[in-house]
């Protein structure tokens, strides 16, 4: 063992490292956050204003003008095999995909954090039961569950949200449980207990506030995964039922034309990338900002 390898990070050294990391990261975090929020904000705005921004109808077919290249009069991004305007469909798809992503993130976030927090704080039998359930769900094959659900509930947006929630709340539950277990032995939590504060208050005002940063950050990066998941479902034909547009289905529909009519797949693909990038940047910025505090 060399001397340097055993240097514990104390005093000035640790302080300096923290400080310089904080300085470096707060600049980087602000930039990440700003760019991320801008990308997602523009996309959401575009989705909301889809009806205004694009005069065309997302599902009206116009066979004579099918497969028009980008730049064609009235179709800045071209048309698909059925003559539907690609830009219009992408805007409406943004509505579907962003809405589903938000729903499929908020629901498991809320459920998972609530369950995990209670399990972590209570410990004992409650904790053992929750941990058991979490482990079972972790081991469960997602696709099988989803296909089963599609059979039961029928394909559609609610099915996707329910399915994603059933699977992904466990990640939040596990994360929240571990964070709460660490936090509950902190002196300030003990102090709150000694002060006679009710448990609900200790959990909500004290513990949750101190641990929520990580699950929220995780949710942002999870949203990226969920958008990719929804598009993958669309591609497999298990997603949003036609003719409602979504980026995944659009790419799936474009499959026969990949080599001849590139715009059909590339533009929705770019939209997915942009949404993913925006959410990742937000997640990154948030986590750096929170870590620095």
């Amino acid at each position, binding site marked *: 063992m060399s001397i340097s390898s055993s240097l514990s990070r104390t005093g000035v050294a640790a302080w300096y490292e923290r400080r310089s990391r904080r300085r470096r990261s707060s600049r980087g975090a602000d930039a990440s956050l700003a760019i991320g929020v801008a990308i997602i904000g523009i996309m959401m705005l575009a989705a909301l204003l889809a009806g205004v921004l694009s005069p065309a109808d997302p599902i009206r077919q116009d066979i004579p003008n099918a497969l028009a290249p980008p730049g064609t009069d009235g179709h800045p991004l071209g048309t698909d095999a059925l003559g539907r305007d690609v830009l219009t469909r992408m805007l409406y798809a943004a509505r579907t995909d962003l809405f589903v992503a938000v729903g499929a993130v908020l629901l498991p976030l809320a459920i998972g954090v609530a369950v995990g927090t209670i399990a972590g704080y209570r410990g004992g039998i409650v904790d053992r039961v929750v941990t058991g359930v979490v482990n079972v769900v972790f081991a469960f094959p997602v696709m099988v569950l989803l296909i089963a659900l599609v059979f039961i509930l029928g394909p559609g947006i609610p099915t996707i949200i329910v399915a994603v929630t059933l699977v992904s709340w466990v990640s939040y539950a596990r994360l929240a449980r571990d964070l709460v277990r660490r936090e509950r032995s902190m*002196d300030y939590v003990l102090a709150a207990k000694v*002060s006679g504060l009710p448990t609900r208050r200790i959990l909500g005002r004290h513990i949750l*506030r*101190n641990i929520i940063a990580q699950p929220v950050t995780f949710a942002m990066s999870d949203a990226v995964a969920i958008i990719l998941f929804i598009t993958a479902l669309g591609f497999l034909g298990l997603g949003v039922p036609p003719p409602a547009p979504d980026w995944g289905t659009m790419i799936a529909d474009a499959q026969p034309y990949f080599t001849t009519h590139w715009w059909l797949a590339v533009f929705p693909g770019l939209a997915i990338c942009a949404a993913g990038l925006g959410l990742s940047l937000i997640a990154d910025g948030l986590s750096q900002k929170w870590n620095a505090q």
Partner: protein
Amino acid sequence: MTEPLLDVRDLVVTFASGRGWGGDRGRIHAVRGVDFSVRPGEAFALVGESGSGKSTTAKCVVGLQKPTRGSITFAGAPLDPARDHGQRRAIQMIFQDPYSSLNPRMTIGAALIEILRVHRLAAGREAAERRAAELLDLVGMPRSALDQRPRAFSGGQRQRLGIARALAVEPSLLVADEPVSALDVSIQASVLLLLKQLQRELGLTMLFISHDLAVVRQLCDRVAVMADGLIVEEGTVGQVLTEPSADFTRTLLAAATDLPPLDLDLEHRQPKQRSTP
């Protein structure tokens, strides 16, 4: 003889041990039958080294640890682990580590007002704010601290804030768990002096947990020396420090690092002194 405020009888705490020496998985006997009582208005110290059971005993008293056996009586009534509001309020604690004992995301004012309101010690928000400000006066902190978060304060200042929080509910017993051992030497003195002043002004009853006999000497009337989960000696601070009866106390006293006495005449001053700061 006055009725004791706190009476601990045959207190036993055992933990299930997850890991042990070379696979020896058993139970750790942290406290193995401890008796003591604290009279109203007195400062009673539990002294011992790490693992002696002193902190576990303190945690039982404030209700953060469930005793395996034994009874704790407070003001004549038994203290169950599930205490009522009034019992919780009556026993407060100050913690060792000033850096983890305050909620980092709450302003000092919000934390104090929360406690005051939960215990209905202030009618309305304004009264609570006024009381919080008084508490800061009491511990020698500026009122501007109300709007600041713990991060803004040094270790000694945080310890003062921790004391303010404990005093917010006007407890009858204050349990202090090594309140100065995490502080720098020059800061220790000011916190000890504050505790002494509060003791004198408010007539606080204190259960003081420490490893340091010199610190105990400053604040306490009686002391019990703990080793391996048992009280090995109990008496007035003067007795125990000067005529220890237990071997362990003697070892502890021998190990205490002392300073040679100052050989300076502190009254000797030249006429020209103190440029005003």
